[in-house]
């Protein structure tokens, strides 16, 4: 008998005893899953959410952080090496339709959504599916511009999703199983959800679509644990008349017939119950002020102002309310009594800006469908300045006519719903824009109880050129720093990084990295379907990734697909 033959049984016995001794710990470890010495890193604490702007591992908010800067602080991928960016993995979802999701990444787990309110959890390093939540859609859905979904919110051990049939659902982040579900509003009356919710201080905030259906818009706050409704802010107050503004935020005459409007108001009263005012995108959160800032969409019906007298407050406005109560704090209306659907949709960004005297103050930026970036004082929502127009403007504000009046921008114009991004080191805000000429047609019709209610029609002019651009604007001066034209109108979103880059995609499938200082195109990738979703970034095992959805777009009819593509640097 050799030494080895003697020692082996002894070692085996010791090992066996150790295994038995460790069994309870092993079982405990398996239950925790992602537990570490420092706690469960996959539980999204409020502290993590608060610090997201400086978090180079995760991507915790739809627009990166509560300020919604979409500025990612990692610089591993930068101007000097972005040329080596390659696909790391591609995940294909079950749904081949318009994709507008902002991937959310928590400790190496990615959450994405698709049209028709599906959600997936993926391994962010490999693209392997962990779970798939397929919402049991009700038989009635009413929505505009595609069955889109723009992503989830994460909080604690839960994932939150708004659905096309106007529900808010809470899922177990580990399993994707439904924890609770709340009906937000009635889809038969035109309400639907495509936006990602926002999670903050134990609340889940969500707005609504429906400005094309005569809804009464809102932002609601729900208890993150129970789903109980905490407060509602109606975006249309019972007195929606306002100050009878005759000029827009840039000082141009909107050609309103105030006398005629007053006559209608006296005869029919305030139209607030069916006045629209959807909130399509996430609010920015100022934790110090304990206030949120969001923008409110167009009045209903879109093109027919004759039956909705007044300024139609708070449509086409930046609005701020108290985070705990939903109580009104301030607002600024860009276009009173809008009859062009050039409303406010792109999510606001909180940055410090120079006021008119050159003094730095807390500011708010909003990119308009008009093609202007508007710069506000955060304290009272007042306008400090607006940028040069990023797209052509012609014939503003000609009123819609029965046979159609041409005006630029078209109703799919300027920044649209696409989120912007900022680089505070350069004092720049980056926007993607659309130029799509249209004619505006008006035809009055009564409230149709949940059916499409435009008060006329928008018509693209097929003989005119359409295009887009990526534009960098100095928000302290309003001047355009650089601008790059693209072959097609742009929609989807954009992200800046500390690597000196901005990433954004196009309807023709091109996904590009630009030098954020100069606009030079440093890298391109053909994704095979429209890249019309905002990119995200994250780091796993020491590697920084850029990720984006390539699923095309319903609104502009860009080639559909179903891909989530993650990129990292080639070795």
């Amino acid at each position, binding site marked *: 008998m050799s030494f080895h033959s003697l020692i082996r049984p002894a070692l085996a016995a010791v090992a066996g005893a150790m295994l038995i001794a460790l069994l309870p710990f092993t079982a405990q470890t398996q239950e925790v899953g992602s537990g570490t010495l420092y706690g469960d890193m996959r539980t999204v604490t409020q502290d993590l959410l608060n610090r997201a702007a400086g978090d180079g591992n995760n991507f915790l908010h739809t627009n990166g952080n509560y300020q919604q800067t979409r500025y990612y602080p990692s610089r591993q991928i930068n101007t000097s090496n972005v040329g080596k960016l390659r696909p790391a993995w591609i995940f294909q979802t079950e749904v081949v*339709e318009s994709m507008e999701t902002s991937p959310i990444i928590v400790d190496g787990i990615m959450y994405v959504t698709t049209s028709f309110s599906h959600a997936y959890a993926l391994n962010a390093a490999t693209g392997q599916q962990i779970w798939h939540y397929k919402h049991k859609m009700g038989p009635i859905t009413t929505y505009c511009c*595609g069955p889109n979904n723009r992503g989830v919110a994460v909080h604690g051990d839960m994932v939150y999703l708004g659905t096309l049939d106007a529900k808010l659902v809470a899922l177990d982040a580990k399993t994707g199983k439904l924890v609770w579900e709340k009906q937000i509003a009635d889809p038969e009356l035109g309400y639907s959800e495509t936006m990602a919710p926002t999670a903050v201080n134990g609340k889940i905030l969500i707005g609504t679509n429906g400005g094309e259906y005569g809804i009464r818009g809102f932002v609601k706050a729900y208890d993150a644990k129970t789903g109980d409704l905490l407060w509602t802010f109606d975006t249309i107050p019972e007195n929606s008349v306002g100050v009878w503004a005759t000029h827009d935020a840039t000082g141009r005459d909107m050609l309103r017939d105030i006398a005629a409007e007053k006559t209608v108001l006296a005869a029919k009263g305030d139209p607030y119950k069916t006045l629209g005012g959807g909130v399509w995108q996430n609010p920015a959160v100022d934790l110090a002020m304990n206030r949120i800032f969001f923008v409110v969409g167009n009045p209903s019906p879109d093109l027919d102002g004759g039956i909705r007298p007044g300024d139609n407050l708070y449509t086409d406005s930046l609005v701020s309310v108290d985070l705990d109560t939903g109580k009104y704090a301030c607002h600024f209306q860009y276009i009173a009594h809008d009859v062009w659907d050039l409303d406010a949709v792109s999510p606001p960004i909180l940055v410090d800006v120079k006021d008119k005297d050159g003094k730095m103050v807390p500011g708010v930026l909003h990119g308009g469908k008009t093609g202007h970036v508007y710069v506000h004082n955060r304290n009272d929502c007042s306008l400090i300045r607006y940028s040069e127009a990023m797209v052509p403007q012609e014939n503003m504000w000609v009123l819609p006519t029965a046979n159609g009046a041409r005006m630029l921008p078209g109703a799919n114009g300027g920044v649209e719903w696409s989120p912007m991004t900022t680089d505070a080191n350069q004092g720049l805000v980056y926007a993607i824009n659309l130029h799509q000429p249209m004619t505006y047609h008006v035809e009055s*019709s009564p409230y149709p109880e949940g059916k499409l209610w435009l008060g*006329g029609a928008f018509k*693209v002019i097929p003989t005119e050129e359409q295009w887009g651009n990526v534009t960098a604007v100095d928000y302290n001066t309003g001047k355009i720093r650089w601008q790059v034209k693209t072959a097609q109108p742009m929609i989807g979103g954009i992200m800046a990084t500390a690597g000196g880059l901005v990433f954004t995609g196009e309807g023709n499938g091109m996904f590009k990295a630009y030098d954020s200082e100069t606009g030079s195109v440093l890298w391109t990738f053909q994704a095979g379907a429209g890249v019309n979703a905002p990119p995200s970034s994250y780091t796993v095992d020491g590697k920084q990734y850029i990720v984006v959805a390539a699923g*095309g777009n319903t*609104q502009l*009819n860009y080639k559909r697909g179903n891909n989530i593509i993650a990129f990292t640097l080639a070795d």
Partner: protein
Amino acid sequence: MNRSLWAPLIGALLFVCSSPNTATAAEIPAETLALCASCHGEAGVPTAADIPILWGQEFYYIYVQLKDYKAGLRANETMSGVVADLDKETMQALAQHFSEQPWPSIGYTAPAYEAGKALAALSAGQCVQCHLGGYEGNSRIPRMAGQQADYLERTMQEFKNKIRLNSAAKGSLLASYSDDDIAAMARYLAGL
């Protein structure tokens, strides 16, 4: 919770889960289905070129159309008579029944020479924003792909000429189209 309380709760849940389609196809009177089939076809292929395919159409769209015929919002001599005595449950059951049938192929081939004209017209109206890519509709928006060409043309003309009044937005949009554009769009969509 007391066990005896579960039964009514489960019953209530089942009721809620089955809503709004409370009547089943089995409860639709045979003569009503036969009446539908006499125009819309025994196997889903209509008996005349300007009668729409119902098999495989969206549930909520069919239900709303039946409601609108009954309310006089959509005028049609034949359909007004058909729906006059239908209650809400039967209309929902009919919509459910037809939406669950397979969409039939009518084997229509659109003339290739006018595809460009049709696509330009569809793009100008941003038609996919509601009818979706592939023009297959969803919920309250009807499928147009593979629908009967003559029906599509007739109903678009009725929107244009304010005969069909149950979707004002469609009326405004189609009023901006020429008859040629409407005919081209109808043939293109039927051929999908």
